[in-house]
């Protein structure tokens, strides 16, 4: 069964109003920020962003904030617990009549992959288990980006980071496979999970729109193509994000009450086209081509898509 978009069929249906204003300290070409900008078009302004330490922490730097909504910076490991405190307090205030319902806010966690995949796993797991009504937006740039691109559990096999460099002993750079956080989330049985990519705005908007009908944890994993960490020209972010999806490396999918649907079936161009664009994979092509590593990456993708249509 083909996944159908119901609300967002054409690009002009995406609201023109901006909710994340320009001029932040984030890097030019940040794919994560583009994904957030698109998400906010559905989320609106009646939002409190509960932030974990990471690149997005620099969004609100005194005395500026790009949001018309609220913001609370917490810690690297406990943004979902911060969301719990805010959500519970808003509920208490509304139940006691001390806050009118019209003042209610959507509670949205903003965390990078460093926080999401590792340090905040305990607090995220707890929040999902307690069925907290919140959004979780992970901008996944596959490394500790704010500190200059170090290995995280989201770093894919074959990528080079500053702490998983390419060497004679480890010619592929990163040796470990990317942790499957989508499946870890899914094992908790939240009502809604989705992956999104900034180059697929209709898919992204449709998912945020669909998620709104669910009370409980709504988790989004956003591809954050990262010129600074992945080493490509900022102008190429759309192309990198596009190829991540078209090669099948970044599957666009959702899980509604645990049932997974792939929302876009790519024709699966060779992974090489994606890898070649980025400096973090250059050692796979220069000075000698590492065919075995490239084949391994291709084989992992092929195996993932087997039987998915």
């Amino acid at each position, binding site marked *: 069964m083909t996944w159908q978009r119901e609300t967002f069929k054409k690009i002009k249906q995406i609201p023109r109003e901006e909710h994340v204003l320009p001029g932040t300290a984030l890097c030019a070409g940040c794919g994560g920020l583009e994904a957030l900008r698109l998400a906010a078009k559905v989320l609106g302004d009646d939002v409190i962003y509960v932030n974990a330490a990471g690149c997005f922490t620099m969004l609100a730097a005194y005395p500026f904030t790009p949001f018309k909504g609220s913001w*609370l910076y917490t810690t690297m490991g406990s943004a979902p617990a911060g*969301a719990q405190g805010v959500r519970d307090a808003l509920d208490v205030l509304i139940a006691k009549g001390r806050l009118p319902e019209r*003042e209610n806010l959507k509670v949205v966690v903003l965390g990078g992959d460093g926080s999401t995949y590792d340090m905040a796993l305990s607090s995220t797991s*707890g929040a999902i288990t307690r069925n907290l009504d919140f959004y979780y937006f992970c901008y996944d740039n596959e490394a500790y980006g704010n500190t200059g691109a170090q290995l995280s559990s989201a770093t894919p096999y074959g990528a080079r980071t500053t702490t998983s460099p390419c060497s004679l002993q480890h010619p592929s750079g990163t040796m470990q496979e990317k942790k499957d956080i989508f499946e870890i989330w899914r094992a908790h049985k939240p009502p809604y999970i989705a992956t999104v990519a900034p180059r697929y705005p209709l898919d992204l908007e449709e998912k945020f729109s669909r998620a709104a009908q669910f009370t409980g944890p709504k988790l989004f994993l956003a591809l954050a193509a990262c010129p600074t960490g992945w080493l490509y020209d900022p102008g190429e972010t759309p192309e990198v994000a596009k190829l991540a999806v078209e090669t099948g490396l970044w599957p666009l999918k959702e899980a509604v009450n645990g049932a997974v649907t792939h929302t876009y079936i790519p024709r699966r161009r060779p992974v090489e086209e994606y890898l070649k664009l980025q400096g973090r994979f250059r050692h796979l092509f220069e000075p000698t081509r590492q065919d075995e590593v490239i084949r391994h990456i291709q084989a992992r993708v092929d195996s993932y898509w087997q039987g998915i249509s």
Partner: protein
Amino acid sequence: MEGEMMTGNLAAAWGARLAGAEYIPAFPITPQTEIVEALAKWCESGAMPARFVTLDSEHSMMTAAGAAAATGVRVFTATSSQGLLYAFEVLYSVSGWRAPLVLVNVSRALAAPITLESDHNDVLAARDCGFLQIHAETCQEVLDSILIAYRIAEDERVMLPVIVNLDGFYLSFTREPVALPDPELVAKFLPPFHPAHLGFKASEPHALGVAVLGGTPYSYFRHQMHLAALNALVVHQEAAAEFERLFGRRYDLVEGYRLDDAEDVLVMTNAFASKGKAAVDAARAEGRRVGLVRLRMIRPWPAEAIRHVLRGRRAVAVLDQNLSPGQGGILFQELAACLYHETLRPLALCSFIGGLGGKNLSEGEFRTIFEQTAEAGVQGKGIGPVLLYTEADHREMVQLQGIAGKVGTS
């Protein structure tokens, strides 16, 4: 004495209940657990109209607590020892948010070696985090201090969270008569929490905990916290006066015991101060002119009140139930610093370390402390840190080492 018999832990739970705490994020840890068990039961039965949530760790618990207080509800939570340290970075965040909640810490010594009984290395590790600290001696004081703590924390001149500390086991599990304050009078003492400068709502967006770039804004906000903490000295006195008027019990920043003609003074905190007072009585019966000062408010540090009670004494001994390895007693250092500029400062300051991991303080140890302190006063030269460890302690330790297979230790 009138009142219901209850443990220090139950008194703490009653403090939260009478204060009208609306939100309780919780996580169990010995010896604190009885507090959250009591609160969970009351929230479940409806006796206490509050929301109770069990978090996944103290780190998360403290984050949820601070975030809820920052959203505008009255928050209570409790922990001990390793739990306090697990939440450590969040303590700094919560005080930086200027979120006025009350955290009860039931003191327990820190691992390793892991143990359950009390000393104060846990709570004193948090002395620099921006939380104010009130240390209680009795179960009644635990309850009363929680009410006073909310009043101080939520005052617009302060707006900082407060830790109320009680000793694990010695107070947490000891039953004492506790008079439960009349809820109507508590409502007069502690009006509902309506913070003027906190809260998140659609019509008034608010960014809290944002990054600052450079030292100037950082210093500004840190200086603000310091000045607000100092304001708590005045606010405490106002609150204590009002508390005494309504409930008839008086609490001061520091408590003096038999100080009037005391030459030498022993300084202590928390539940073991009761042992110290008994030791003062015994020493006085033998003709020694000694007294005791119990430090009740640790943050803000009541320097002037301390100078006032110690001015002109011959010798002062500080009994620290904590140890900063390689340095000595934490409170001794702070006390020495605040007496330095006092013209009539004591002739000798003595530092004793005792009661670590709940180790008892015997009558003999107190006698030794008084003797050595008097001698130091006569000599005009302080001593310490003296690590209190008796021959009986050593015999017990040798026996344990024998069982552990290590023989011939001396």
